[in-house]
């Protein structure tokens, strides 16, 4: 078990070092200069030079990499070229939108997927099962931004129950949750469709195992076997998918954040790329990599909890 934890930890650290290098190098070769972008078409060459030196862009690549990584390790992400405010503060502001959004949609998708998956597995082969699977197939195929637009047209434009977008801030928690409800739902439904399909097939696979037959032979009902024995064993693939989905929800909400004009991480990075605010791009991407790697790490450790075989020395 210790060995398992150690190898997972080592691969976590190695992933992060490689990621920081790759991020830095990729952004080095991206065409476009932040200073020229900020000063526009009429800027005098000497003005661009003055701004480049003010932003610290005239230093060598190695020196800039060292400054960046050194800063990040001590919690200082540097100052945004475009906004001229500390990147760490900007990220902190945006995480307050993105993280709750990701958690809310994860909660929604799990809450929808678990009962559906269980239900379909319990009614395997019946018209109910076929119907559910057809519906989830549609859910998987639906692009979430299109679904988002439908939600906006119905709940914001026609019914006016919820705002069409924007985020009022957490000072008013009710308004904040209302603002996150539609985007979370738009993100959650396609995820729930995937998750319920995985859930169903994992359960169906487990149900054909020998120990299930034994349990049934002991006299347990199909439903009892499903919830007491099969569910726990089916959780490993489900956990893997949930881990992947959480990373996706955190980083992949760019389009949804645009549709609902939410000030989240995805939109920050999107804006920063077009403005060549590379220091923001670097730091946010690194942070997302850290989040993804950490989530996978936690999922790996969570296998320990659900799979006793991994706990053997």
């Amino acid at each position, binding site marked *: 078990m210790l060995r398992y934890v150690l190898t997972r930890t080592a691969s976590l650290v190695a992933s992060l070092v490689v990621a920081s290098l790759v991020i830095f190098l990729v952004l080095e070769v991206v065409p476009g200069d932040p200073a020229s972008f900020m000063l526009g078409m*009429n800027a005098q060459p000497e003005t661009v030079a003055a701004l480049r030196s003010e932003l610290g862009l005239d230093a060598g690549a190695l020196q800039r990499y060292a400054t960046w990584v050194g800063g990040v390790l001590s919690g200082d992400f540097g100052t945004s070229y475009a906004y001229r405010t500390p990147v760490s503060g900007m990220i902190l502001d945006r995480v307050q939108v993105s993280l709750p959004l990701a958690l809310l949609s994860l909660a929604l998708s799990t809450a929808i997927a678990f009962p559906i998956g269980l239900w379909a597995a319990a009614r395997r082969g019946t018209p109910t099962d076929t119907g559910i699977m057809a519906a989830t197939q549609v859910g998987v195929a639906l692009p979430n931004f299109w679904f988002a637009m439908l939600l906006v047209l119905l709940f914001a434009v026609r019914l006016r129950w919820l705002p069409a977008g924007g985020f009022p801030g957490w000072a008013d928690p009710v308004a904040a949750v209302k603002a996150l409800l539609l985007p979370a739902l738009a993100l959650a439904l396609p995820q729930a469709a995937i998750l319920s399909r995985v859930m169903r097939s994992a359960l169906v696979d487990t149900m054909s195992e020998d120990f299930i037959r034994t349990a049934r032979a002991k006299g347990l009902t199909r439903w009892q076997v499903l919830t007491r024995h099969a569910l726990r064993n089916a959780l490993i693939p489900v956990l893997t998918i949930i881990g992947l989905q959480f990373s996706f929800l955190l980083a992949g909400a760019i389009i949804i954040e*645009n*549709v609902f004009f939410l000030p989240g991480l995805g939109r920050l990075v999107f804006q920063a790329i077009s403005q060549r605010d590379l220091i923001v791009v670097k730091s946010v991407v690194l942070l997302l990599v850290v989040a993804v790697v950490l989530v996978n790490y936690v999922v790996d450790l969570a296998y320990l909890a659900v799979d006793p075989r991994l706990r053997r020395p």
Partner: protein
Amino acid sequence: MRDSSPLRRLLAATLLAAPLLAGTALAAPRTDIVVGMQLEPPTLDPTSGAAAAIDEVVYANVFEGLTRFGPDGEVLPALAESWEPAPDNLSWVFHLRPGVKWHDGTAFTAEDVVFSFDRAMAPDSTNAQKQLFKGINEVTAIDDVTVEIGLDEPKGLFLSNLAWGDAVIVSPASIDTDKTQPVGTGPFKFSKWVQGDRIELVRNPDYWGEPAKLERATFKFISDPTAAYAAMMSGDIDAFPVFPAPENLAQFQADSRFQVIVGSTEGETILAMNNKRPPFDDIRVREAIGHAIDRKAIIDGAMFGYGTPIGSHFAPHNAAYEDLTGLSGHDPEKAKALLAEAGVTGLKPTLVLPPPTYARRGGEIVASQLRAVGIEPQIVNVEWAQWLEQVFKNHDFDMTIISHTEPMDIEIYARPDYYFGYDDPVMRALIRGLDFTSKDEERNELLRAAQERVATHFVNTFLFQLAKTGVADARLRGLWPNSPTQATDLTAVYWAE
């Protein structure tokens, strides 16, 4: 029917009255506004960045210059109430408005003006329009309310240069924090900025001029055109002065809750050509391309009919405008003949397109029109930063579509190092002549000659003047229809009953 109890009657009366009460509450005119913008300003200091979004929030609302642009581009007094040039036009004396206060309560004086100019002209200045200050040799405070500005030589556009957002007056006390917490002299004070979401302004009760009618103004940033549409439709946004989806304008026009405001901008949209690179160094090739293009088809197809055809690099609403579209009328046969005469066959130029709709949609139409005369353009879509680097800085392109949004910018044709590489001594002399003439009639004469010069040399193909298409709540009054400079002046905006 059952006898209704007093309680039941009371309940019914309340239910009936509720909408009426709500109705009276709604009838009082609102004193706040939520304005939608597509891009968020990176900072709020208009003197150290080129982003149009900065001026769209703070120009005339928060910051003011010595002079300012009015709704139709006229130069009006602002922090300077009057001025007079010396007889030789080599120095100007500005009389500042007395008793003006910065938003932080300190007094505005001539020293602030000196500070702002010195800062913009300094060697390490990061002013994006530093050329506005070229030729100013000294700025001195004569007393608290009088400033003298000395010039190396007369400058015809001097007063108009001072009206730009990049030339607003800033306070030395707050300059270090102006980027995130601007302190100006305008009718609105900065209140709050939630980055990525909104900026809030509040009315300045101590404003020197007519106070703003609105108490609060919020600018909200919505980049996605579909989201902008939904936000207008759901009432989350009261006005979108530059609405990003022209395809939805007809729908707003048909809805009595909204008004569509169409006006002019300073944006000459052109199909620029690299005049230094063969075969575009041949005037016959450039003329051929001019005749290959059908402006109306581009305006209808890419801009949903909004836009005015232009035949030179000049705004049609300007007094000195001359209609030269006839010089390059749509004539594919003539285009083919000119190309044959120039001996050009199998031309496959790059057509570099930046992100705006006019370029991306317009580019597709331009490409198909060029194909009709035997030119096979290779479309390259780029981001802004890439466009600036590749086209604007390194001149690595054959053709591009771009809107030049600065006012009175025909002088770019007098810069031989400019990206389209037009080098003409006659044009340079014409533009230089403008600095030595301040009489309108003579200036207009020179400007007309300049328009004709670039049109007859077919430097670029001049497509159309970009229109400003905005959407607002039907009850809003006082929004600027035109865009003489990038601004959302809210001073005179109010809600009708």
